[in-house]
Each structure stands twice: as structure tokens, then as C-alpha cells.
């Protein structure tokens, strides 16, 4: 019980895949491809999300396939952003797999372009089909414990409840719901969206989440690379703290008439 702590054995398993880092990175919203690559490297992530867009010769520099495929130990998880319904998401996932050659898909279906909150019904329908097609499905979902179990039941490899709406930086607004999801889940729980500060990533990990997915907080930082490193430290600290076992909060005992006096008269 008193061994010196090491993180060496702490591997995250998603389906049959193993990951050494519990920080997933989104690659959007960076000022340049180079800034993104630097942040990915600094973060130590082994799984990054990418989106699919129509080829445009005039914007060839947006094509991230080349730069990302140079990185060692980084696997791609195409997302289905832009899909408004299950059918579109399935098509996007199939296209993404053609390029990524990776079993991971971040299933996201957000029909409303303003808040980008996920559609649970379409997501559920798409998950069923994508699991059948052999994907490791990681759905981006509202922090709804029932939905999380329904998605687990149909074979999702993990669930990714949102901490707050995408890009809002409002942190773990859904903390109480995420705690229930973590408590009940048999598959990894990844907090996706909403995180602003490494301390929030640490907090999610302390709650027992298995990983976090961060994009805006790093991409929109003054120094994305340094923020990537900061999130790496935050995730590791939180994970370590979770494994170490947090001290409980204290409650002042309420003195009242003893509840157990009836036991004093026991006869057997």
C-alpha cells in the first residue's frame, strides 16, 4: 500500500485499443497548422480529433492529413461534425475511416448551429449502426446518465458527456450528472467540451473520469503549446489524485439525542 507511485501501468483501454495519455485533443480553431502541431506535441496526447471538409484546391494548407501523419504515437479520431442526423453521421464516419484507417469515431450530431448541443436521439440511432459496422464509437452526448447507459448497452466504446456547451469554457457545469455517469458506467467516460482551465481537467479526472477531450481552451490560449503542456499536467495530476484517493470533506457532527441507545440493551 505504500509503494512509490508511478503512472507506468496506467493505460486507458477503449475497446481493444490502448492509450498512454488520458488527454484527447481537438485540432480545430488553431491560428496555424504549426501552432496545432506544437500543441499536440506538448500535450502528450495520443488521440486527436479531425473533421472532414470538402476538398478545396485554394485552401490546400488546411489539409491536416500530412502534418498529423508525421506525428508518432498519435492516432486519429475523425468526428462527424456537420452531420445533422444519424444518416449523415454514418456517412461521415465511413468517409473518415477511409482516411484515418483508425477504428475510432467521435460521433457528434448537433443540429443547432448556435449552441452545437448534441441530438441524443439521432446519436443513439447512429451509434447502433456504427457499432455494427465495427467502429469504436465515442459519442459526444449531453451529460445524461440514462442516455449514457443506453449507449453503453448498444456497444459504444466510451461515452463523452459534455462539461458545458462547446466553446463556452464554462467548465464542469454538469459535474453532478457526470459523477452519476462515472459511477454507473462500465465503459470509459470522457469529458468533452466546456473545459477552459487545466484545473477543470484535473477536477474531471479527480471525479473518476477516464479522460478529457480539449480543443478550444488550448487553441484559443495565448500560447497554445504551453497550454497543451498545462492540460497534460492537469490531467495527470487529476488522475493521480483519483488513484491516490481524495480525502473526504468534513462535516461537523450534529449532536443530538443518540440514535443507537436502543442497542445498549441488547440481550443476545
Amino acid at each position: 500500500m505504500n509503494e512509490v507511485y508511478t503512472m507506468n501501468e496506467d493505460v486507458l483501454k477503449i475497446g481493444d485499443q490502448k492509450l498512454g495519455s488520458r488527454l484527447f485533443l481537438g485540432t480545430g480553431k488553431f491560428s496555424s497548422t504549426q501552432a496545432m502541431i506544437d500543441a499536440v506535441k506538448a500535450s502528450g496526447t495520443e488521440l486527436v480529433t479531425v473533421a472532414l471538409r470538402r476538398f478545396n484546391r485554394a485552401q490546400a494548407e488546411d489539409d491536416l492529413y500530412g502534418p498529423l501523419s508525421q506525428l508518432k504515437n498519435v492516432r486519429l479520431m475523425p468526428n462527424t461534425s456537420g452531420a445533422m442526423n444519424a444518416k449523415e453521421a454514418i456517412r461521415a464516419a465511413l468517409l473518415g475511416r477511409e482516411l484515418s484507417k483508425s477504428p475510432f469515431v467521435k460521433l457528434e450530431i448537433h443540429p443547432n448551429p448556435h449552441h452545437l448541443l448534441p441530438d441524443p436521439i439521432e446519436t443513439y440511432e447512429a451509434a447502433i449502426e456504427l457499432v455494427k459496422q465495427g467502429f469504436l464509437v465515442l459519442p459526444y452526448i449531453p451529460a445524461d446518465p440514462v442516455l449514457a447507459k443506453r449507449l453503453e448497452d448498444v456497444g459504444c466504446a466510451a461515452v463523452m458527456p459534455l462539461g458545458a456547451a462547446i466553446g463556452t469554457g464554462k467548465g464542469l457545469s454538469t459535474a453532478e450528472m457526470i459523477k452519476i455517469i462515472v459511477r454507473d458506467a462500465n465503459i470509459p467516460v470522457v469529458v468533452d467540451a466546456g473545459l477552459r482551465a487545466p484545473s477543470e481537467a484535473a477536477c474531471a479526472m479527480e471525479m473518476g473520469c477516464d479522460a478529457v477531450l480539449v480543443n478550444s481552451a488550448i487553441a484559443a490560449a495565448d500560447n497554445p503549446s504551453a497550454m497543451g503542456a498545462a492540460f497534460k499536467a492537469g490531467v495527470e495530476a487529476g488522475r493521480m489524485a483519483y488513484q491516490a484517493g481524495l480525502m473526504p470533506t468534513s462535516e461537523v457532527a450534529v449532536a443530538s439525542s443518540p440514535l443507537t441507545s436502543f442497542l445498549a440493551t441488547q440481550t443476545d
Partner: protein
Amino acid sequence: MKTQLPAWLSPEPWLNLEFSAADVQRALHADAPNEKTLAALLSPEAAHFLEPMAQRAQTITRRHFGRTISLYTPLYLSNFCNGGCLYCGLAADRKATRSVLDTEHLRHEMEAIRAMHLEELVLLTGERMPEADVDYLETCVSIAAEYVHNVTVEVFPMAEAEYRRLAEAGCTGVTIYQETYDPVVYERMHRWGDKRDFAARVDAPDRALRGGMRTIGIGALLGLADPRHDILCVYRHAKHLLKTYWQAGVSISFPRIRPQLGGFEPDFPVDEKMLAQFVFALRICLPEIPLVLSTREPRRVRDGMAGLGISKMSVASKTTVGGYSEDSEESTAQFEISDDRGIDEFNAMLRAKGLEPVFKNWDATYREPARYQKA
């Protein structure tokens, strides 16, 4: 081949940990209780923290169940049994007056139960017998379901398809105690018959839920083996069921073998304080699930424990076949009732303690077999 506890149930990593007073205090206020929390609260050291544990258990119970106690009553259909349970007065080698309710007498019993306004019933039998088999149970369930909203059974382990037959007849829940989760003791206690199959019993709750039951009651018969071992296993068993059949209701009971004259002497007697400690510990670690105390316990203990972790109690129980209507022949009881108060007297006690008795929290309108997708 020696039966082993499956890894998902084994309490080994936590069983032999030693806990200090500081560990117990930490466990008392754990944010996310786990096996280690429970082991700390079950430890001998925690026996010195009975009062703070009671306070915490009461707070949690009030938060999740309000100031209420759910009521149910057992109905013994048959005491025929070919079982070899060393601790049971109805084992095949015990002198007992055997009887089984026919449908006419069952209706008399149900009328007596309905007259008490009780709406939750547990139908009991011994092991699988020609006198009380699945066909018989199916008939009894459908008759009982005419009278009360919530009919459950506490009978022999069955196949999934058999559970489904009962569910379709209107049965909503199954209670099945593992008796002990120690395979060695289990083998010694169950001298012959179907019940010797430890694994078939461990898996019975899974089969019952897959068969369409909405609720499952589990527990260990306290006194047979190291109770800390068994309570840790009960906890792990409950967690398994809660995670796998997440729509199902899981409850835990605390049947305790009490020393009795000329009867079975438990190797690990559990006294009242230990019983209380175990109830408090499980309440703290499982804030949301019903914890059940029967009329095996004396009225003083029942009065004291009501709302103190315990959220559900049997009432006005008869453990003889035909006991409610008293128009059947004599039959031997499975165990002696320690709290023989009638329903009015018991409810008056609850109300005096500021607790409201709840007769019904489920309506037969929803009576169709449950479905668990994953299973």
C-alpha cells in the same frame, strides 16, 4: 473441483486491510464510496463509531427515502422441502409438519392480507418440489396478483425462461439470498440437493432480471461465515447488478441467524451492534437502494433501526403455511417471528417516530415483464 468465488465478486483485496480510527472517519464522509470505504466501515475499528455512523445513515436515508418506511409481508405457500440446509428447520431431515396452500386457501390468505391494506407480497416456498413447482408458482402469482399490486417471490433458483413465466403471470420481483458467499462454508451448509450448486445460485439474480423481473433482493444469512466477507460480497453483487441491469431495482436484506435453544448454532454469531454497523455501512456506501429488515428481529431492534439505514420492513408476518387466515392445518414455521405486532400497532410505532408507512409505491398498471437491452 473446488468452487471459487468469481473475481468480480471476490472481496479479497479489501478483506484483510487494517483500518485506523482516521480511516473510519474518512470513510464516514467519502464522496464516492467504494469497496475500501465499505471495508473500513465494516472493520472492528468502526464499531467504535456506531453513533456517527447511525447519524450519517439516517441523514442519507432521509435524503433518499424521506421519512417513510415501505411495508411488505411474506406469504408461505409451501414448506415442503428436499433441501439439506444445515441451519434450516424445514430441511428434509427435520421433523416438520408439511403443507402446501391450495388455490382456495391461497385466496383466503390473500383476503386476510388485503384486509390489512398491504400491497406488496413475497410468496415463499422451499426447494423445487412436486408439491410446489413452477407451474404451481405461476398459478399462485396470478391469483395473488388479483389481490395486491406488487407480487414477488422468494423461492428456489430457476432458469431464465421459468422466471419469465412468473413475470408474465404478474410477478415483479425475486428475492434470493446467497446464504453465504464463502464457497467452502456454502458446501458444508448445503448437504445435498440442487442447492449445492453455488454458481447457479450466484447467477440466479442475473437470470431473474433477464427473465423480466423489475426488482431483485439479495443478501447473506448472517452467522454462517465471516460476515465482513459476506457483506463485502453482497455489496459487490449489488454493484454488478446495478451496473448491468441499470433499470432494475436492487435491494439488500439482513437476515440474521439468532441463537436459539436446541437450534443451529452459528459459527459467526452476529450481535445487534454488528448488525447495526453492517446496515449503517451499506447505507453509507449504497445511498439509494432499499435496505430491508424483517420480523426475525426483535421489536426493539426494528423500532430503533427504522429509518436508520433501513427503508423497508416486513410487517405482521406469518411464517407458517396458511398463517394469515388460520384456516389451514398446522404447519411448521421456517423461523420464529420476533416481532409479532399487528399492522396497526406497528404503524403506530412508525408514526410515533415521525415515519410514514408506505403500502404501495408501484401500480399493477405497469405489470408486464421488464426488458434489459444488454441482457
